[in-house]
């Protein structure tokens, strides 16, 4: 700071001190209206700003956390959270990137079933948030997005504030959020925020956005007695139409080889229980695509590893909220794009899904159109009781096949264990070994794996029975989800005595590694184990495919696809942000002891990271 800048700073500080003194003295005086451009206002106090009421609205919705990177367009809201609200329910979570804020809220919902709010700054913060919002959209996860924006151009400060405001702040997200509004009054804010919450939590659940005008936040509440916060009553999820459900039950009951394929079904343990009841009523194998934890991996009907063979042999397939049923019944070769039917040509299909209730045109996350024989637009968990009831009333063609099914399950598990032995002592460490080692420190805990689709080994090897064991995946496969979602999940699990772990890909972490600092700062206990293959591994394989297709050399596929030379030291990266860490570990025998040490840290309520150098997949 040069001398001139220092003088200027001291002058400003003196003025601030004077203003603070006046503020303290005049805290209970009604707000005076300063004339714009008059230079007046140093003695002006707004003791009850609109943002205090906004905090009341969030509290009425039982929102416990607001994840955010701080910004001037919601400075008043921020100040109201920490001072008026005492930084309790909601608590402000300091994030280093808006993408992290949204993904934390995403993971938090999946672990808790509760919505988290996040705040994003006008134009640029919302742009940063956008990819993570898209993931939440694809994954059918509700997030309360709050954008800051100054609509009244005459009130904006010159310079950056203009660049950070927009006419249509939510516009960039509108293709992948369920609803948004930009309230013009505090009453409008209350009603729209409660409406947004209610809409987000009604299946199909999705993110929603409220744009909180900066002046509405900062100005005094004019007439508080006239304000009211609407009562929240959540909408009961829609059940399937009874005639269609009965027809589905008849078809399933008569099937010789039915298979149940499920993806985003269970919202809680009750959903898992219903899925077991359904499968047992049909004695039908279940292929859990793990968008949520839908079915216990310990159950003899859990046959996820045999999915393709079961679909191939099936005479009836029951799809339950499956994002891509076409992809389950067909395959497409890559890079030649040749289609091949897997399912029988005459297989009967049933799909219970809410997909048709909410589909937008631009982003193509709806997958290929798949005609089915019975299509039921409904929430699966809400529909399962009636479907089970109808099935129990019909004849079951498979009642005597339990022993065969148990045997097939045991064979599948034996094949998995033998497959896990391959490369057991290899260095880099095999992904099977990594998961087997991690299981050793989790098996005696009440545990949660915050992301369970990036590798299939956990679902194949670990006995999982609880809805919170596996939290599925990002939804949109936007890289950068796993680390912040795991932090959000760990926050949700913190007070429940659930140990949260994540197998953390290196490329994913490097999108916004600052979330490790957030975990350390807020004392969020998370066990991160690096799946450090030093590459965007999938892209290496894509380069090889293209080189083969173009009849060119293969040995260049690592150019532009790897994260090496220099290798990133993830332990140091974590340590620099206050996270206990060890690694890189290349000897598989050293993983177990390192994980034990890390677990001791996590059990004390702190995050820990173990960097393991792994095989590609």
């Amino acid at each position, binding site marked *: 700071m040069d001398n001139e800048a220092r003088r200027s700073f001291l002058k400003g500080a003196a003025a601030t001190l004077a203003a603070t003194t006046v503020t303290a003295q005049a805290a209970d005086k009604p707000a005076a209206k300063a004339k714009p451009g008059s230079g007046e206002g140093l003695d002006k106090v707004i003791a009850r700003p609109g943002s205090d009421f906004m905090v009341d609205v969030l509290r009425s919705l039982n929102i416990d956390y607001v994840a955010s990177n701080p910004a001037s367009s919601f400075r008043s809201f921020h100040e109201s959270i920490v001072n008026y609200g005492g930084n309790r329910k909601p608590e402000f979570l300091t994030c280093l990137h808006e993408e992290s804020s949204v993904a934390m809220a995403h993971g938090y919902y999946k672990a808790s079933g509760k919505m988290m709010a996040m705040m994003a700054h006008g134009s640029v913060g919302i742009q940063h948030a956008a990819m993570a919002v898209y993931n939440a959209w694809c994954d059918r996860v509700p997030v309360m997005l709050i954008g800051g924006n100054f609509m009244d151009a005459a009130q904006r400060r010159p310079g950056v504030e203009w660049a950070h405001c927009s006419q249509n702040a939510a516009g960039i997200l509108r293709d992948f959020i369920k609803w948004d509004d930009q309230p013009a009054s505090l009453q409008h804010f209350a009603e729209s925020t409660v409406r947004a919450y209610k809409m987000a939590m009604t299946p199909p659940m999705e993110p929603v956005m409220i744009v909180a005008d900066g002046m509405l936040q900062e100005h005094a509440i004019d007439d508080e007695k006239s304000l009211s916060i609407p009562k929240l009553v959540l909408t009961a999820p829609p059940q399937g139409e009874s005639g269609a459900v009965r027809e589905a039950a008849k078809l399933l009951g008569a099937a010789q080889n039915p298979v149940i394929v499920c993806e985003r079904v269970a919202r809680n343990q009750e959903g898992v229980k219903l899925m077991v009841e359904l499968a047992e009523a049909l004695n039908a194998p279940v292929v859990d695509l793990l968008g949520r934890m839908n079915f216990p991996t310990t159950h003899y009907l859990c046959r996820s590893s045999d999915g393709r063979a079961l679909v191939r042999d099936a005479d009836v397939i029951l799809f339950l909220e499956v994002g891509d049923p076409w992809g389950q019944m067909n395959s497409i*070769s*890559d*890079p030649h794009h040749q289609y091949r039917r897997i399912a029988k040509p005459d297989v009967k299909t049933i799909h219970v899904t809410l997909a048709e209730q909410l589909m937008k045109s631009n982003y193509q996350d709806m997958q290929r159109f798949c005609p089915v024989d019975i299509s039921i637009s409904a929430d699966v968990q809400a529909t399962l009781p009636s479907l089970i009831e109808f099935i129990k009333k019909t004849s079951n063609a498979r009642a005597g096949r339990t022993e065969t099914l148990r045997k097939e399950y045991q064979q599948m*598990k*034996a094949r998995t*264990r*033998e*497959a*896990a*032995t*391959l*490369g*057991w*002592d*290899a*260095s*880099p460490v*095999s*992904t099977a*070994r990594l998961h*087997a*080692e991690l*299981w*050793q420190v989790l098996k005696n805990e009440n545990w949660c794996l915050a992301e369970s689709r990036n*590798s*299939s*080994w956990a679902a194949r*090897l670990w006995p999982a029975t609880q809805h919170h064991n596996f939290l599925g995946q990002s939804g949109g496969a936007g890289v950068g989800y796993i680390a912040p979602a795991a932090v959000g999940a760990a926050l949700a699990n913190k007070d429940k005595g659930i140990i949260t772990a994540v197998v953390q890909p290196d490329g994913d972490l490097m999108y916004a590694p600052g979330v490790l600092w957030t975990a350390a700062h807020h004392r969020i206990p998370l066990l991160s184990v690096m799946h450090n293959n030093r590459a965007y*591994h999938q892209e*290496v*394989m894509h380069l*090889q*495919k293209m*080189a*083969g*297709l173009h*009849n*060119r*050399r*293969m*040995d260049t*596929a*690592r150019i532009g696809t790897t994260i090496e030379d220099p290798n990133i030291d993830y332990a140091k990266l974590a340590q620099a942000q206050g996270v206990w860490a060890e690694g890189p570990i290349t000897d598989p025998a050293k993983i177990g002891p390192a994980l034990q040490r890390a677990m001791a840290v996590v059990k004390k309520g702190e995050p820990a990271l173990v960097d393991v150098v792994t*095989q*590609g*997949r």
Partner: protein
Amino acid sequence: MKSFLPIFFLLVGNSFAQDQTPAGNAQNGYKAYLKYQCYTCHGTVGQGAERGAGPKLAPNPFPWAGFEFQVRTPRQDMPAYRKQHLPDQELVDIYAYVRTIKAPPSAASIPLLKE
């Protein structure tokens, strides 16, 4: 990765000749296996990889004729490795390396994999 290179690699060429498989140098084959990035889909010890990356190659790789055919004119998603980009001798060496990969311990003998 030096741990993958036991000295007996140098000897396997002779044994291959006995079953009409072209003679290859396993040590060179390991280098070629890495150079041509076979390991990205099949793992550094031919163990294969999950999520559709590539099947296991070892232990007990399929016979040379099938191995060569698959590399040159692959079925399914594997990219084709044509002669001008993977010379015959290096492919033979790669096969020699794959054949040296030992079977892993059984699942029953690994405490971490017991039920």
